[in-house]
């Protein structure tokens, strides 16, 4: 297990040293959300009604920006071959890299979301649930995204391809993430969508690395 955390720690250190990926994702998230009121006009009721959906969709798009690099940089500089000769199976290598992506990109995005909620006049009661759904739902974003990153490993400029492959798989996460926030604002039960969201994330955490490793095996041949 120590090799697993060694790899996670290295990826986090690289994310801090390089810095660009996180800065780009956060900046993109901020700009997309900030432009929306400019486009739609200052109708506060409309903005607060669509705020959960906008925050979630913009978060998915921002996370996509850095997903392409999850395996690509290690593949290009030969590290992936050496990693594969290590003690970890490819499944755990994929899991470690997805976990590092979650910590270095998805969590900061989830923590920025409530700040951006102010721009969209999101109702105050919804803030705790917004952060909760994003923290619970984003593991699915990183771990499902790892599948797309592994599949497009050899495709140069595979960024758009990842979006096509992965965004449809994000639909359940998006639907139940927004459902939980809407339930908080309305009369519905919050527990059900939140539990399903948790189940999706747990499932993705297990299945994502297996699928990503299978994709990596064919790509590395």
């Amino acid at each position, binding site marked *: 297990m120590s090799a697993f955390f060694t790899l996670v720690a290295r990826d986090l250190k690289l994310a801090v040293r390089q810095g660009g990926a996180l800065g780009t994702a956060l900046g993109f998230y901020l700009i997309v959300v900030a432009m929306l009121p400019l486009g739609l006009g200052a109708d506060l009721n409309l903005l607060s009604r669509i705020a959960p959906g906008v925050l979630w969709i913009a978060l998915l798009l921002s996370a996509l920006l850095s997903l392409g690099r999850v395996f690509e940089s290690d593949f290009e500089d030969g590290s992936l071959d050496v990693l594969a*000769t290590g003690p970890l199976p490819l499944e755990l290598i994929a899991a470690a890299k997805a976990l590092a992506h979650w910590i270095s990109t998805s969590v900061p995005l989830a923590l920025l979301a409530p700040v951006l909620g102010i721009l969209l006049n999101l109702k105050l009661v919804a803030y705790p649930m917004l952060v909760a759904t994003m923290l619970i739902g984003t593991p699915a974003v990183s771990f499902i995204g790892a599948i797309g990153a592994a599949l497009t490993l050899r495709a140069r400029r595979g960024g758009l391809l990842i979006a096509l492959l992965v965004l449809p798989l994000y639909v359940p996460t998006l639907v139940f993430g927004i459902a939980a926030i809407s339930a908080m604002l309305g009369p519905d039960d919050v527990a059900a969508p939140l539990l399903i969201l948790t189940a999706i994330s747990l499932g993705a955490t297990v299945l994502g690395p297996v699928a990503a490793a299978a994709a990596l095996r064919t790509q590395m041949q």
Partner: protein
Amino acid sequence: MLLVAENLVLSRGGRTVIGGLSLRLGNGEALLLTGANGTGKTTLLLALAGLLSPASGEIRIENEGDDREPGELCHYVGHLDGIKPHLTVAENLAFWAAYLECDTSEGDGERLSAALNKFELAALADIPAGYLSAGQKRRLALSRLAAAHRPLWLLDEPTVSLDTASVALLVDAVKAHCANGGITIAATHLPLAFENAKEIRLGLQESAA
């Protein structure tokens, strides 16, 4: 320990590169793979490292009381160095040592500085690896060999961009490794002076094969 490959058939992109190669290497033996470009030196090393599955045939390690795959017992140093430009030389090496070494109990710090000294990188230890020259990067990749103990070394043209003095360092390291009972397989175009090394000269496969 015995490395055995039997009737190995390897193909890349639907073309048979190596057709029916068998080899046996025991403790302390070194093997040089030579041959023209495209004759399958890299392909063979990839297969031995477990990174490429053979079309047919078998690769195994016969080692009493140890059923690990060849891939877990080997150091693979390929054309690419596996170096992160944003980490310092010492950090790059420390990561690979901690990752590749299954038991990290022994004195890590000493082993790392010994590995850096062996390939004359000690003076560069705190410099980000992105600033190294091509030959220095290669030496850093080779220093993995000394930083983590593994019995099987697979070196793919290890002398590329090395100067004469560095090639001598590499040859010394391989000699010491084989003297300790390790196995080394190196693909090369230069005549490397390993002691009593076998040589397999790979030829182009007929397209009919």
